[in-house]
């Protein structure tokens, strides 16, 4: 197996190719360059990015690049399957609660406890996308943050590009896209990190393909205005979601869906989130609550290594 490691989009990127061919080494720099181009289009932390340019010009139709258009479609899709709970129109809400810069920069500058006095509107209007002219217009008071959608799209896209070469797994900061079984027909072993203990895993999944994503409030947390804040915004009130779920891990047919489902579950909380996930077909989930309780469905259990051993 060959692995390619680099940093992009504020995360560690790992690409694992199940092959002995040395020729895949040439793919490392090529994929890294692609990630760089995607980040330059999609990052809200880069002042010269296409996204930042759009955010600075509400009310003005902007032509979208191919990459930007694809991620807008992915964001639309995430919004549709989540009933509007996963939306990119939450940037002002994030800024309102202090998340106005890259998280590492915030920590370095302020520590985990910092105060800010910012005034940003919370627009909730629908973003106007005209697919015929390939343009997007932001309403006043709204800014976009693609967040996990951009990272999920990037991992999914990289996986699609590399799957012709060999069975491949692409991990973009914990969101994982898998092309299919490994060469010998076995599944990919993927650990599920324990949010209470980073050195240990909660479970070992044997994933045949599709996407695995974890969303939660265990990492991006800070104190603002005397209250604990996190980065998962509930668009119903444009505040950090009031939820008892610490992390939600979801297995789905593809990474984009898995990411949207996981975030939706976190926003909804354990009761409503579990009911909502149970109505989906072919989706496995593990919810870790703040009190340490774990809730998982049958599909998740059947994907775990222990279960597969017993059934084989």
């Amino acid at each position, binding site marked *: 197996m060959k692995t390619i*490691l*680099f940093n992009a989009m504020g995360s560690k990127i790992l690409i694992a190719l199940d092959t002995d061919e040395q020729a895949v*080494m040439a793919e490392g720099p090529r994929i890294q360059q692609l990630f*760089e181009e995607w980040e330059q289009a999609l990052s809200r932390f880069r002042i010269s990015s296409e996204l930042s340019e759009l955010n600075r010009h509400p009310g003005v139709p902007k032509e979208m690049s191919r990459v930007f258009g694809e991620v807008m479609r992915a964001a639309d899709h995430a919004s549709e399957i989540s009933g509007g709970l996963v939306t990119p129109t939450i940037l002002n809400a994030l800024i309102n609660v202090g998340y106005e810069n890259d998280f590492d920069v915030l920590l370095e500058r302020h520590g985990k406890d910092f105060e800010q006095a910012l005034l940003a509107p919370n627009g909730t209007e629908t973003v106007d996308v005209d697919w015929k002219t390939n343009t997007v217009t932001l309403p006043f008071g709204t800014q976009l943050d693609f967040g996990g959608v951009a990272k999920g799209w990037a991992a999914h896209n990289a996986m699609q590009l590399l799957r012709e070469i060999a069975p491949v797994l692409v991990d973009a900061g*914990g969101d994982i896209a898998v092309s299919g079984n490994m060469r010998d027909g076995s599944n990919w072993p993927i650990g599920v990190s324990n949010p209470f203990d980073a050195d240990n895993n909660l479970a070992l999944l044997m994933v045949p393909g599709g996407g695995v994503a974890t969303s939660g409030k265990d990492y991006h947390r800070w104190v603002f205005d005397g209250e604990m804040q996190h980065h998962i915004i509930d668009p119903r009130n444009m505040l950090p979601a009031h939820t008892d779920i610490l992390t939600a891990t979801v297995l789905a047919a593809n990474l984009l869906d898995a990411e949207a489902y996981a975030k939706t579950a976190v926003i909804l909380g354990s009761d409503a989130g579990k009911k909502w996930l149970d109505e989906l077909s072919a989706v496995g989930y593990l919810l870790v609550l703040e009190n340490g309780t*774990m809730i998982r469905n049958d599909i998740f259990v059947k994907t775990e290594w222990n279960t597969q051993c017993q059934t084989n």
Partner: protein
Amino acid sequence: MEKNTPRKKKKFVPTAFKFMLAAGSLAGTVGVWNILARQEFTQANAQNLNLPGTFVSTDPLPTVASLIVVGPSVASNQSSTPAVAAIRDVTVTTVQQTAAPQSGSGISLPPPSSAPAPVTNTQTSKKP
């Protein structure tokens, strides 16, 4: 009485041969330097390939032969320190599970010792 005639200088080696020797020596020196320079460049890259996030300078060493600069060119001046791709062979092995089971928190027991080592982990965020 000896005649004081001008002595002709003896030529042991023809001039053409001297030229050949000089040219050969120069070519050898340049060639060896070039090989050494390439080796140093390759080794420097190889060391850095295992250090994600480390900036690698790919300026060629002084040599008469042009070097091929590898790696992506980072076009944006907005980017932070460019990360460097690391490519390596890995084998999925079986590892000894050493984690103690957590009780009372509802957290599941760790997989037994014969479980394959995960290729990677899913989690909320993985920072560089």
